[in-house]
């Protein structure tokens, strides 16, 4: 056997090492290329980051609105206002009576005194109330219907039943309003999902176009690699990684943009919530949501690169 015909024996372990090396090489060389042409890289990344930040902000708006309606949901109960003439003893008696009711899950009793203190604490009209000799507030019993009463009609029937009691002044039921709110939330959520899908498509196409230009710039390299026996997988590897890096950078930027947006909104939102005497904390993306932004952005980058390479590589002749 002549020297040239000696088979190039490569063991499995060496092959694995070489394969990993080839990936590492493509991984870092693609990053190096992006860093080497910072202006065009930054422009692409910012366009993508804005699109992704937009999608993430829509999501955060929905998440915050959900948080708001979520706390309302917890008060999905009947507020039973007793007549002003009912005294504490009668009120307690009526409370015990309601406790026996089969359709009520739990009850809480707010005495006149408690109601007054709560009102003083929350409204800021404490000084005005000092002037009054009598406590004008009624006893309130809050009743949470059993879960089995999901039907609007059944809950209304319960409200009417309690309302018919001579000691009861009025029963407040926020069910209808809550349902409308939930429907609006659902619509909002669906809308955001659709818009985000469109934005994802935009991200894929923007990345794809960037990769296409990169491929045009490096046509010679691709051609020569093909001529020395490179497989498609080898040729496209660095481009796929370029897509990944662009996506990753865009994801990180989008996250920063989102934080800046939320920080900017935080003050006004708190002020607004203060005017409503409520404690509303603006939700920021948690760890999982942050990772989701970065991961899906990277994934979209890879998808964009891959979709373009699928047909563009074949256009560079020879096969």
């Amino acid at each position, binding site marked *: 056997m*002549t*020297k*040239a*015909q*000696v088979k*190039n024996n*490569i063991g499995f372990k*060496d*092959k694995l*090492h*070489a*394969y990993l*090396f*080839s990936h590492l*090489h493509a991984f870092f060389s693609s990053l190096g290329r992006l860093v080497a042409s910072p202006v065009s890289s930054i422009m692409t990344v910012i366009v993508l980051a804005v699109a992704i930040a937009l999608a993430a902000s829509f999501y955060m708006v929905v998440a915050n609105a959900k948080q708001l309606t979520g706390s309302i949901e917890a008060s999905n109960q009947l507020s039973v206002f007793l007549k002003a003439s009912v005294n504490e003893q009668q009120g307690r008696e009526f409370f015990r009576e309601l406790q026996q009711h089969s359709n009520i899950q739990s009850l809480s009793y707010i005495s006149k005194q408690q109601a007054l203190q709560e009102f003083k604490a929350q409204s800021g009209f404490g000084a005005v109330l000092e002037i009054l000799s009598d406590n004008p507030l009624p006893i309130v019993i809050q009743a949470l219907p059993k879960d089995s009463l999901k039907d609007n009609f059944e809950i209304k029937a319960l409200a009417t039943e309690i309302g018919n009691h001579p000691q009861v002044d009025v029963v407040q039921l926020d069910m209808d309003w809550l349902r409308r709110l939930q429907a609006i939330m659902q619509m909002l959520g669906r809308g955001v999902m659709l818009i985000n899908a469109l934005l994802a498509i935009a991200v894929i196409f923007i990345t794809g176009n960037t990769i296409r230009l990169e491929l045009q710039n490096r046509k*010679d*390299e691709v*051609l*020569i*690699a*093909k*001529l*020395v*026996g*490179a*497989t*498609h997988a*080898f040729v496209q590897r660095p481009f796929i990684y370029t897509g990944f890096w662009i996506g990753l950078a865009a994801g990180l930027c989008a996250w920063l943009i989102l934080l800046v947006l939320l920080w900017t909104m935080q003050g006004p939102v708190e002020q607004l919530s203060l005017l409503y005497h409520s404690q509303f904390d603006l939700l920021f993306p948690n760890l999982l949501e942050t990772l989701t932004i970065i991961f899906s952005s990277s994934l979209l980058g890879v998808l964009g690169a891959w979709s373009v390479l699928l047909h563009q590589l074949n256009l560079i*002749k*020879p*096969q």
Partner: protein
Amino acid sequence: MLKFDHVSKRYPETGDVLTEVSFEMRRGEMAFLTGHSGAGKSTLLKLIAMMELANRGQVFLDGQNLNRLSPRKIPFMRRKLGLIFQDYKLLVDKTVFDNVALPLMVAGYGRHDIAKRVRAALDKVGLLGKEKKYPLALSGGEQQRVGIARAVVNKPQMILADEPTGNLDPELSQEVMHLFEQFQQVGVTVLIASHDLFLIKKMGYRILKLDHGRLVNG
């Protein structure tokens, strides 16, 4: 090693470039391919390198019918070849080392193996010590030798060279041809397209002559 069986190639724009070409090359043989410019030399080499497909007839390389080769297998078949171009086709933004290492990277060699083989190939063409230079910092002759090092680094079974001395002076040409002889002596099949008749005749190897797409002797 190589067999052309009544091969014809036609381009829509220029018509027949090769007509009914038949010849064979044994393993370890060295031959020159000559003819006037436009006679079809480059096209013939492109058929072997799978850069083009024959319209009629068959090309066999190492026993494989190239017309029937699936696109998936083409890269692996190409690794049996070492291609050398008149314009060198080097990557100007990569060092000499990286240029020569490309076929090894592509074939999946490890880093240490690559370094070893690249140095051996550069040593063979007399460019050891210039690994870190960029192609444009080298002379034409040196660039061509980088191209040769890249072609032989993966120990191909066959070397195809398209006008390898086209841009070199007679002395350098002689040197390059001598390199090819050395590869032939270790068993590599070598086919060189060249119109440098004086040099070819002096060397005394088999000559395949193309005239308007037909093989007139060989």
